[in-house]
């Protein structure tokens, strides 16, 4: 399988809650709105969602509570059975898996972190982290070694014998993270992992999380209701409302071109200059390369502020990570973004 195939790909996925959702969906004429479905006595948890997650990508699903983001991620791991559509994980239709195949998939490929940690209260940190290894029958010595390794990775050395109730919220979530990483999953689901934490701890955990991701390079589906968190972490953001995806794009594009009024409401208060990168604002090369010191595509407009104000040229060359010039940044356009008129 080449690296271009999406790791998770879902097409027209529906998840309805109610008396007989399959029949209701089969009989639905055209596409009904969320409220119409509700009037019929069903709740649309996920409403006709098609989305793909590439290898090594971090997709952040953002939405307010009740928007269906947690339901969607539970469909990916088949904690919920979907009502309609299809979900493929690494090219395999997960709805066709038998119970044992599903257990195998979860034991070897998937890890999940929960909002309220979901730790087993009667097990120590070590036993909690080793739990998935124990379930797949690894021997005691091996699983202990691996668990200690992950515990060190999340910075909880010395707390191995503690029970969850003896730890702070941040520490408990570190245990949750360690547990989800113990089996070395390819796909990592994080369901609002930092929402239950204090703002300061949350910031610290986000940094920690970025550090881990730098090291591990997993395929990640990250759920949050915090737009700033989404902007900070995401490769791509999917914004959900009433079970449907309103827009799915890179942070730059969402900030610059919100697809709907609903998305625009989130972006309104955002300091766009801190989100938009030079690369996203650049035009493709049009035959000629402007003069001047090139700017790196991955710097934000905010970081370029001094340069933009002091420079005199109309256009600046933009280079990618390898140093090759890939585009042209219009200084005026960038200044508009900086001033908040973009």
């Amino acid at each position, binding site marked *: 399988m080449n690296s271009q195939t999406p790791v998770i790909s879902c097409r027209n996925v529906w998840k309805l809650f109610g008396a007989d959702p399959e029949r209701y969906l089969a009989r639905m004429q055209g596409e009904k709105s969320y409220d119409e479905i509700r009037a019929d006595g069903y709740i649309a948890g996920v409403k006709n969602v098609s989305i793909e997650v590439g290898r090594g990508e971090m997709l952040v699903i953002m939405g307010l509570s009740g928007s269906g983001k947690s339901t969607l991620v*539970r469909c990916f*791991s088949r*904690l919920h059975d979907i009502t309609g559509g299809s979900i493929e994980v690494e090219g395999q239709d997960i709805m066709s898996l038998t119970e044992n195949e599903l*257990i*195998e998939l*979860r*034991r*070897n490929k*998937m*890890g*999940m972190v*929960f*909002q*309220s*940690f*979901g*730790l*087993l*209260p*009667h*097990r*120590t940190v070590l036993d909690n982290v080793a*739990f*998935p290894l*124990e*379930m*797949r029958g690894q021997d005691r010595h091996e699983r202990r070694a691996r668990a200690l390794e992950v515990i060190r990775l999340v910075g909880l050395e010395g707390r*191995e*014998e*503690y*029970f969850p*109730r*003896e730890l702070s919220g941040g520490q408990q979530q570190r245990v*949750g993270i360690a*547990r*989800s990483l113990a089996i070395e999953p390819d796909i990592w*689901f994080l369901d609002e992992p930092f929402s239950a934490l204090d703002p300061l701890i949350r910031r610290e955990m986000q940094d920690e999380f970025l550090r881990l991701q730098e090291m591990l390079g997993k395929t990640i589906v990250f759920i949050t209701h915090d737009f700033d968190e989404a902007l900070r972490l995401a490769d791509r953001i999917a914004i959900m409302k009433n079970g449907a995806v309103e827009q799915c794009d890179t942070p730059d594009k969402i900030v610059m071109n919100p697809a709907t009024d609903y998305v625009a409401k989130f972006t309104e208060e955002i300091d766009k200059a801190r989100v938009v990168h030079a690369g996203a604002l650049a035009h493709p090369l049009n035959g000629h390369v402007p003069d001047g010191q090139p700017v790196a595509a991955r710097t934000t407009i905010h970081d370029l502020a001094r340069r933009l104000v002091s420079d005199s040229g109309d256009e600046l060359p933009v280079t990618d990570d390898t140093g090759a010039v890939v585009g042209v940044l219009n200084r005026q356009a960038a200044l508009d973004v900086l001033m908040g008129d973009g």
Partner: protein
Amino acid sequence: MASVTDHTSLRDDRRSSGRMSALRLIFGAALLLLVLKAVGMLPEWLNRPPDWLIPPYAQWLDAFFNFIKGDMETGRPGLIYLTRWFSEGPLEFMLNTTANLLEGKRRWPNIGPISWSAIAAVATVIGYYLGGWRMAALAGGTFFWTALVGQWKLAMQTLSVISVAAPLAFVFGLTLGIVAWKYNWFDRAMRPILAVLQTLPFFTYLLPAVIFFKVGPTAGAVATIIYAMPPMILMTTLGLQKVSPEVVEAGKMAGCTRWQMLRHVYLPAARTEILVGVNQVIMLCLAMVVLTAFIGMPGLGAKLLAMMNSFKLGRSFEIGVTIVLLAVTLDRLSKAWVVKQPEHFEKGTPWWKRHFYTVLGCGAFVVFLGLAYLSNRVPNYTLIEGANQGNILQYLFSVLGDVHRTQDLSQGKEIDTAIKHFLDLDGIQATTEWLRWFLNVQVLIPFRNALLWVPTPAFILVIAGFAYWLAGRREAIIAAIFFSIVASTGWWDRSVITLYTVISAVVLAMLIGIPLAIWTARGAAPPLSLQGSAKDFAIGLVGLAFKRIPVLFGALLVSSLYHFFTAVEESAAFLSPTSPSLYIFGATFLVLWLAVRDWPRDKVVLTIVDTAQTFPSFIYLIPAIMLFGVNDVAVVFSILIFTLVPLTRYTVEGLRHVPPEMTEAADMSGATQVQKLTSVQLPLALPTMAVGFNQAIMFAFFMVIIAAFIGTQDLGQELQRTLAGTDLGKNFVLGICVSLMALTFDITINKWARNRKAALGLE
């Protein structure tokens, strides 16, 4: 939006006006029947259902039971082969094993009896592990007391059955609870059965147990298991349902199979509820095992029954204390186990330190076994003057193995005389005499006669009307059906007498319990404030009495014991200034008072109430018989003190959980204490109080049957009589009568409490 609310309120109005007219109709019809009867124009068939209308339920049931039972003599297959196999096979084997270990019955494995001191030592270690020195003292002390008053063998006969019945009830309850949680249909089918089981009088458990499972310990164990199972089932289901969904999902994402989910995720996460279930199983086992004395099971219960029969109150009192101590110990230990959290050890802790208590327990066990062995080699020293009198150390050493008959410290006869002296005190006698006369002549008998006078249809209408008024149409229909069934069994008058006893006792208990609870919940407020209004003053005065009554009682008990031991010959006047008893009384009062003075009053009352809640119901008969002898007042009194417990507990609970911002709002609106109580706290506490009231009624229905022992004329008496024979059908019909009446109250009151809570937005 406005139009929508208009509509609903309109509908509500219409519905409530429909309700009012239905209520008027029901009560009007009842009134008409009463008036007709009063003027003598009521036809007899409307007064009581005529005989030809009463179906022979008992015969039908007998035929049915006979059919499923099968017959061992003729060889007709049936249930009895299975039950007999169970009771003669595995169950009897287990009972024999524990009986051998604990009381030395000559059966496999033939190594018992284990000496009491070894058991007491292990209990002490377990107590220390679970709850520190206090628990160690309680657990060790209980066994120490039991052995030294010479009731070890009796207690072990009881415990050997419990130690089989409780684990079995736990296993069955857990299994059924898991099945009920897993399969919704099973849960739905189970709930009504459990509701009936929980209201069925225990005599109805006993007879089938005897018929299907042999007489003696096996039948007792079976009845106990069935009786103790329902709460275990309910708690298991509840606990499993309450496991946080994230923990469940975490388990699934870890790739658990179904069995791994149950074993490693669900059951450990539901640990607390399951252990609460275990606690209930143990308590119910103890309560029931005492009652199985009625079908001839040996042990503490049988002895208590025999002693009470021959009015040996001193010995009864001692056995009562043993039962209570055992109950409190088992209860506190299992509760401590519920809250006990595992501790972690740092890396490198040596093995014996990790398992310190196991090592200690085993060590103590072995050491005391050895000591007991040595102790049986020395003469039986006693503390009494005579041939074998030894000093205290010699005595203690010689009883480590067996407490010989001459060695026990029982004071049964002495306490007997002391109690009689106490009851002979003029003040006490006059009070109980007057109470007995007043309650009997002025309250109970007129009330009973009035209820018996009411024509059956009017009675059913009034009950249904109340159910309709309080709960709703569904409950009214249920009430009418249930009471009609009771009427159709032909046991109407006895049912009414049962009901009358229950109602009188609960009403009396409310008169005492609710003021007590209100006073308790007022917590830290000064008990007697001179600035308050006259009502405040009255509440304060009542409070003052309540807090001192236990102290007073304790002091009185100690001094009368002393009074007895020193002045057996002449009955010196207790209240004369020369009597040392008076000073003893004063000193004890002072000591006790100093001990509890600093306790907040709610702690005093709740400690008493919570302890009383663990007493097996049988115990409550002792003071009742002691004070009032054998009559209706004693019955009502024993039910009264039994039901006082839940009434007080729940009222305190309800008042305490009134949201503080509401009482603060009342304070800021300038409400006086009394206004705050009547218009804020009580209305908000009412739904919780109703739950307590409901439990009180259930307790009363339970107790009224036991009170058959004192001598009643109600269903319980008939039930007790059936125990002697094989009248399974009649036994069931009577049991169902009790159960149906209790269920009517249960359903109605619970529904009312739920409605009320929803209306107040409390849940």
